[in-house]
């Protein structure tokens, strides 16, 4: 059985699943809209936690938050299910497919066979859509892939029941109820306000303050951790910022696209101006990544080089602080 479903490639998996499921249900919602309304943008440096033996830095909110907020703000109801037994998880999935209902699944990346080997890490917050089943093969629409693909039922079970942080436990979700018309305008305002609050939060590891915290640590790393570890850490930050899924510049370009689209919907010119500003800030993040890569490429950098990229981050923090204060006033 195959549901008549159109696959659209997106930059990020969670945005993509939401946007594609919305389109399937007759609501044209772009990826940046989902990301902006769901207040996806963030910066957070989580101390003590290590990912791939390096500090955990994130440029986005917790997995699942984007869809949750998007649904709440636009008035959609979502059904979420988690399972103890793989058998039950499979049965519920098959039931939905029989009812012509494509569903979103949270999966682990490590056993996703269609991903290139070098991208398969133990990351459990990836999202995809299942839109049908042919014999033992599930038809998969993974938003970050150019085209649709398939997984055998055994392969699908493995990724649905991956273990470790954010273990999906078969997590399946789909929209069940829609308002007649989405109240996009108020949803946009709520989404923007939330992001401004997050980015300007008076918490030392979150938002602007989080960026400054990371900058401060980068200055210390070559001395406290040694060049080898410092380079590994720096590489990890760049990967979090630019790895498949961020659309470039640690989600800043997607956010700029959201502001541009919003300026037209809300008829608010200052949002269009702010979109341009966000694009420039995105460029600064790219410059930071480029400069950082020069350090870990050579593997024998001087302390000066670390200070330089740290300064770049501090400049970005200053700019984003001004930016989000302006954005808060613009709506």
């Amino acid at each position: 059985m195959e549901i008549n479903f159109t696959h659209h490639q997106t930059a990020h998996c969670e945005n993509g699943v939401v946007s594609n499921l919305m389109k399937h249900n007759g609501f044209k919602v772009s990826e940046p809209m989902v990301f902006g309304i769901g207040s996806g943008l963030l910066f957070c440096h989580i101390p003590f936690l290590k990912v791939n033996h390096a500090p955990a830095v994130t440029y986005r909110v917790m997995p699942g938050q984007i869809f949750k907020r998007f649904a709440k703000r636009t008035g959609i109801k979502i059904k979420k299910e988690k399972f103890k037994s793989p058998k039950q998880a499979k049965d519920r999935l098959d039931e939905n497919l029989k009812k012509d209902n494509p569903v979103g699944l949270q999966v682990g990346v490590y056993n996703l066979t269609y991903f290139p080997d070098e991208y398969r890490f133990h990351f459990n917050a990836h999202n995809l859509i299942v839109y049908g089943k042919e014999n033992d093969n599930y038809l998969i629409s993974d938003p970050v892939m150019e085209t649709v693909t398939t997984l055998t039922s055994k392969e699908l079970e493995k990724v649905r029941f991956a273990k470790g942080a954010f273990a999906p436990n078969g997590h399946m979700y789909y929209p069940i109820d829609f308002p007649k018309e989405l109240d996009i305008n108020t949803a946009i305002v709520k989404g923007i306000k939330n992001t401004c609050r997050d980015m300007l939060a008076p918490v030392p590891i979150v938002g602007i303050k989080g960026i400054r915290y990371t900058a401060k640590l980068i200055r210390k790393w070559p001395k406290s951790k040694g060049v080898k570890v410092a380079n590994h850490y720096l590489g990890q930050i760049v990967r979090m910022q630019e790895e498949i899924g961020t659309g470039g510049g640690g989600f800043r370009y997607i956010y700029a696209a959201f502001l541009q689209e919003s300026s037209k919907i809300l008829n608010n010119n200052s949002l269009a101006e702010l979109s341009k500003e966000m694009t420039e800030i995105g460029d600064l993040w790219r410059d930071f990544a480029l400069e950082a890569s020069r350090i870990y490429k050579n593997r024998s950098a001087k302390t000066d080089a670390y200070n330089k990229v740290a300064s770049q981050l501090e400049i970005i923090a200053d700019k984003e602080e001004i930016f989000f204060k302006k954005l808060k006033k613009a709506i």
Partner: protein
Amino acid sequence: MKKNDVPQDDGGLEKDNIKELCYAVDEKGEYTTIKSTGWDPKTIALDNALQEINERINNAKERVLNGETSPIEYYMECHKMDIGILASYVGKFQWQVKNHFKVKKFNKLSEKTLAKYASVFDISIDQLKDINYGN
């Protein structure tokens, strides 16, 4: 970022025929999406991370051969895991897994426990006891 500035570096993705989506502005300043083959700064970061993993694997292998740790640690590294991830896959506490790294403890492990580890690593128990089956 302008549309024409979206990098099309050799990202190692071509062989898998995968392109990723980037957001950039066109000539009129309108946002659009462009497919990118890759960008050197992150390809280098990824390569370094993979090299780091290989070093960890080789290091674990050497320590197994020296009798300093059990093959479980070696296979854990082969599967890009850390103790926390492995512990949750086998349904044990981290301190238990750490204990199983000790060669003496490993040699005394029950078939049942060995089978658990072997199935997580997708190998047989015999292979688990012999490190020649890792990558």
